[in-house]
């Protein structure tokens, strides 16, 4: 009887490692996340902290040398009318792009989540992802041509006799311009086009998680389609809408290429950062500008949380 064992003999290093990990589960988790944690901690958060620190430095206006002393002077500069304008312009654009994306994305995401099956579902994913596979610059330049004065939109508008409508649109004070490609309307259209997939995908994922029985329960209790949409579907899809809006909002806040190529050359935060750290050599002010979107996003998430956007998670 003495040669009966409850366990198999160890077959080498792997067996001993397996046994060690089984005895101390924390060790395995530690080994697995060590490298990503190092990356996240040092490279990612580290550079963010470096950025934050830079924003509290200032620049000597005569010599152009960065003074490594803590001061709020640089942040005060953000409030100068020219800089405050940039911030306001960027935030307004980001908000408009986000709202438009949400309105456009919802029916598409709803169809994909509730009705598309098999082949149609594949077509949906392909249709959403395909634009993401081609270069961002190519798409933006393509849009510049589409929106230009000689472009297909004005050609088509004139062709169907809607040229006056387009002219009236471009004559709008503030957002109008010479042509679509040199107006805020054009910048807005291209932003919406480029970021729309980032709104559709999380929205579709959250709509797919709303059980059919929930919609039936609402109808069973007397609710029509609109009431169900407002009281059941939207609240349950809200986490997805918030996730999508984080993408569209923050991507618009940080972009510096689209407003450079399309629009009236007015400065956006991203462009300001690009110019300040490059030609102007004003790293502290560039850093302070870069902190603005981070703060705005934190405030936005805080409000979303207060409103209960994550309650259904």
């Amino acid at each position, binding site marked *: 009887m003495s040669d009966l064992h409850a366990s198999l003999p160890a077959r080498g290093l792997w067996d001993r490692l397996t046994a060690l990990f089984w005895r101390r589960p924390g060790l395995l988790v530690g080994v697995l996340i060590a490298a990503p944690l190092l990356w996240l901690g040092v490279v990612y958060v580290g550079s963010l902290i470096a950025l934050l620190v830079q924003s509290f430095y200032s620049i000597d206006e005569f010599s152009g040398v960065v003074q490594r002393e803590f001061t709020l002077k640089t942040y005060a500069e953000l409030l100068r009318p020219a800089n405050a304008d940039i911030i306001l312009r960027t935030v307004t654009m980001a908000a408009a792009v986000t709202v438009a994306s949400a309105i456009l994305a919802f029916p598409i995401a709803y169809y994909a989540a509730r009705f598309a099956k098999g082949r149609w579902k594949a077509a949906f994913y392909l249709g959403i992802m395909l634009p993401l596979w081609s270069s961002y610059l190519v798409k933006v330049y393509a849009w510049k041509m589409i929106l230009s004065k000689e472009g297909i939109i004005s050609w088509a508008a004139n062709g169907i006799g809607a040229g006056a409508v387009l002219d009236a649109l471009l004559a709008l004070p503030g957002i109008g311009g010479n042509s679509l490609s040199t107006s805020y309307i054009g910048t807005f259209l291209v932003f919406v086009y480029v970021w729309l997939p980032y709104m559709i995908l999380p929205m579709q994922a959250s709509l797919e998680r709303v*059980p059919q*029985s*929930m919609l039936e329960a609402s109808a*069973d*209790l*007397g*609710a029509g389609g609109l009431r169900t949409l407002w009281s059941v579907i939207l*609240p349950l899809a809200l986490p997805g809408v918030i996730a999508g809006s984080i993408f569209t909002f923050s991507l618009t806040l940080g972009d510096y290429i689209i407003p450079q190529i399309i629009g009236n050359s007015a400065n956006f935060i991203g462009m300001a950062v690009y110019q300040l750290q490059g030609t102007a050599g004003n790293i502290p002010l560039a850093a302070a500008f870069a902190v603005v979107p981070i703060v705005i996003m934190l405030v936005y998430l805080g409000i979303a949380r207060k409103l209960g956007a994550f309650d259904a998670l």
Partner: protein
Amino acid sequence: MDDVSLTIAEGEFFAMLGPSGSGKTTCLRLISGFEKPTSGVVRIFGEDMGAVPPNQRQVNTVFQDYALFPHMNVRDNVSYGPMVRGVDRRTRLAEAERLLALVHLDGFGDRKPAQLSGGQRQRVALARALINRPRVLLLDEPLGALDLKLREAMQDELKKLQRELGITFVFVTHDQGEALSMADRVAVFSQGRIAQVGPAAEIYARPANRFVADFVGSSNILPPLMAAAFGAPGAWASLRPEALRIVPAEGARIRGRVTGARYLGAGTRLAVAVSGHSGKEEAEIAVLVPAAQMVPSEGAMVGIDWDTGAVHPMEPA
């Protein structure tokens, strides 16, 4: 579903019983309006429901997964119906409190569904469906997710509630015990058709065919030759295990050998291998021995006795 014709009386507690995929849930969804019949009509209180969408029927449903809205608290869930109808907030919240009291959930109004147990969620679903004062309440496997003790308590409670409110309850279940103990009448579904409709006691005592006998309870199903040995020649027959008695083998009408025993608490279910008149046609007959009586050991020769009236002839299919 095929060729289903069913009339449910007002104020009745009606059960639709059957295995999964037998069409009972489809039948329920036809009444609620979530499925449309490809042919035929659904009438509720004589009114053709062909063009009436679910939200305009005086019918409410307790869903199998309860389908409580997770983002609303219990009070808002229950008052959803009146909210949709545009009842002002104070009135509808008071009404919700009244219904929560009816299902013994007073004081739970502020909780979210996720903070409730399965049984409590079920009561909330019940209150939410009843607040619209439906003329028919549909219940889709209402007790399926509850444990045994709770299920029995809820059975009594549903029965009591139905009597108090006096409205028609139609419920779907695959649990024959549940159907028999709660319902006034039962429809047994099999493969999209109705195998038998009738009062619960009749379904149990006189199954119309082999399917019903097999599905409802645990009857002995006797093929014609064996039925002849039990005194009902010429047809298939059913015989309840509790209608049989173990007697001494000497002089018994039918004898057999005990091949197995399963202890059930309230009694012991014996399997007895018997042979018919011809001596061939071997069959296993289940006999329920009440707890107070001696249980013969496995392998013993025993006699079987029964009341002739207990052998019930039926359709083969």
